[in-house]
């Protein structure tokens, strides 16, 4: 493997809240190889989501280098960053974030509007993605008419519709029951195994982390430790420090 899909070197990020400065990421170094499935764990406030936002090009680092899919994101301005996101990343959120006024199919089509595709091609790509997540029969339903698990699967279909190399998921199972969570995790596993997607998921759920090849533990903005061997399912996980 040559250049990793994600490479962070000396990345720092802090926010001002009220009068005080809050350091969220503190000189962090991290590399995720192409085609890997990594999980990111850590207590609240350890900087997981911030890290994900930096990798996804939703936010800029204060210092250090964030190189994703061969692009140094610090060098891109807002407009270029938007285009870069459209081309390279698929997002999956804890709260699904589907547009409630659009049907499942139209939600999946949304990112495809940014690609130079004909109407028919868009429709084909989107319905294909929905088939992939097993919701071909629900494509004309609105989010409100779907269960949480189904909504999240639509969100995954949306994330893969443009066929990005990298999928970033922030607590994708956080709002789901066990069964739905398992379905979603199965799907992510498939994307990794069958389609060679690079996947980075932020999670509190040890069972979710167990699907990943490696689990990165963050604490107070620093790399705490990396588990290469996931804890076996059902075993009590180490409580977050």
């Amino acid at each position: 493997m040559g250049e990793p899909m994600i490479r962070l070197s000396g990345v720092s990020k802090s926010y001002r809240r009220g009068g005080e400065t809050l350091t969220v990421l503190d000189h962090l170094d991290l590399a995720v190889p192409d085609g890997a499935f990594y999980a990111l764990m850590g207590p609240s406030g350890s900087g997981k989501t911030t890290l994900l936002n930096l990798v996804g090009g939703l936010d800029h680092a204060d210092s250090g280098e964030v190189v994703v899919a061969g692009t140094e994101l610090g060098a891109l301005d807002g407009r270029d960053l938007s285009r870069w996101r459209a081309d390279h990343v698929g997002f999956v959120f804890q709260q699904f974030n589907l547009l409630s006024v659009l049907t499942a199919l139209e939600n999946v089509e949304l990112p495809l509007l940014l690609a130079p595709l004909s109407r028919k091609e868009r429709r084909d790509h989107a319905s294909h993605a929905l088939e992939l997540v097993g919701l071909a029969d629900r494509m004309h339903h609105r989010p409100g008419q779907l269960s949480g698990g189904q909504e999240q699967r639509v969100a995954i279909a949306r994330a893969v519709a443009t066929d990005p190399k990298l999928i970033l998921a922030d607590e994708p199972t956080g709002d789901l029951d066990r069964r739905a969570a398992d379905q979603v995790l199965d799907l992510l596993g498939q994307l990794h195994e069958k389609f060679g997607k690079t996947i980075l998921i932020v999670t509190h759920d040890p069972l979710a982390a167990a699907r990943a090849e490696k689990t990165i533990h963050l604490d107070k903005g620093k790399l705490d430790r990396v588990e290469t061997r996931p804890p076996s399912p059902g075993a009590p996980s180490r409580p977050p420090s």
Partner: protein
Amino acid sequence: MNKLIRRSLLRHPVRTLLTIGSLAVALFLLCFLRSLVTTLEAGAAAANQQRLWVQSAVSLFVDLPLSYQGKIDGVDGVKGTCKWQWFGGYYRDQTNFFAQFAVDPEPLFAMWPEVEIAAGSKEAFLADKRACIVGEGLARQFGWKVGEAVPLIGALFQKADGSAWDFQIAAIYRAGRPTVDDRTFFFHWDYFEETMKEAMGETPQVGVFVIELEPGAAAPGVMASVDALFENGPQRVQTTTEAEFQRQFATMFGNVPRLISFIGGGVLLAILLACVNTMLMQAREQLREIGVMKALGFSDGAAALFLLSQSLLLVGTGGALGIGLALLTQRGIAGFLSRFFPGYAVQPLTLAAAIGVTAILGLLAGAVPARLAERTRTVEAMRPH
């Protein structure tokens, strides 16, 4: 994308409907108010260059001696003259108010080509001394037909025996230009003069004389010569162009046009605020979705455009309804206001202005939330509440 804009607006159908409703009301009101002003000015704007009006220099309520006509006819550059006398009568009931004038019949047609015969005939009017010709609007209001007998009660001019004046409708005219309104009643001066001589024992006086200029005659010269004729009385006259003559009625309304503009400004302001309010609500609720769209790779500009389009669609729909309403109600309002604002009409320029105002409202109401959307940081927009 269009679908998304439409559906986003329909997410709160009640809100969208209410906003469209208030916009429709506002645009209707603006068209209405503006039309009042243009109606006041319409006569002056369309005035005929070939006609001059001779009135008493002292007061609108003072008449001129009949003998003036011959003297005015003798002035160089004058092709012909026509007498106009305000009759001020009413039909059946005092509330049936409309303008009636005793005029010279032939000059009426010669000098006012815009009085176009719509029913009946010119010849029938000329042939019968008791004939009258009425405007289409008036005929419509009272359901008058050609050949019908119309008695008028003379409020200012009473017959010797106090009975009603008898007229017969010989023709109905269409107003070809706004210089004539379609709610006027014209009848023969001779009938008026004879009847008044009988009642009062003296020749009645004339309200105004209208001069038709010879082609090529210079209006200022003729005006000065006519005024000079009666410099030493018995009644001084003031000769004006038709535009000036019409304008004096408009200026008599004093500050009304300014007042109307002021009210229009208030309406606009109130509505702009309401639209900005709606769009802000709309934007605030869609902040998360806009964040999602940005995360998916839509640019800041696209997000702003998304809200701006919603605003334009919303305001455009409301504006179109309001303008449509103004056009639809035009005839009804014209009838209702005929007493103070004869010839009420929504001018094309008013419509154009209303469309412009709608577009500007849409842009302004969309600009504030669009700016908000553009500046919202994706990360914050999606933070769970």
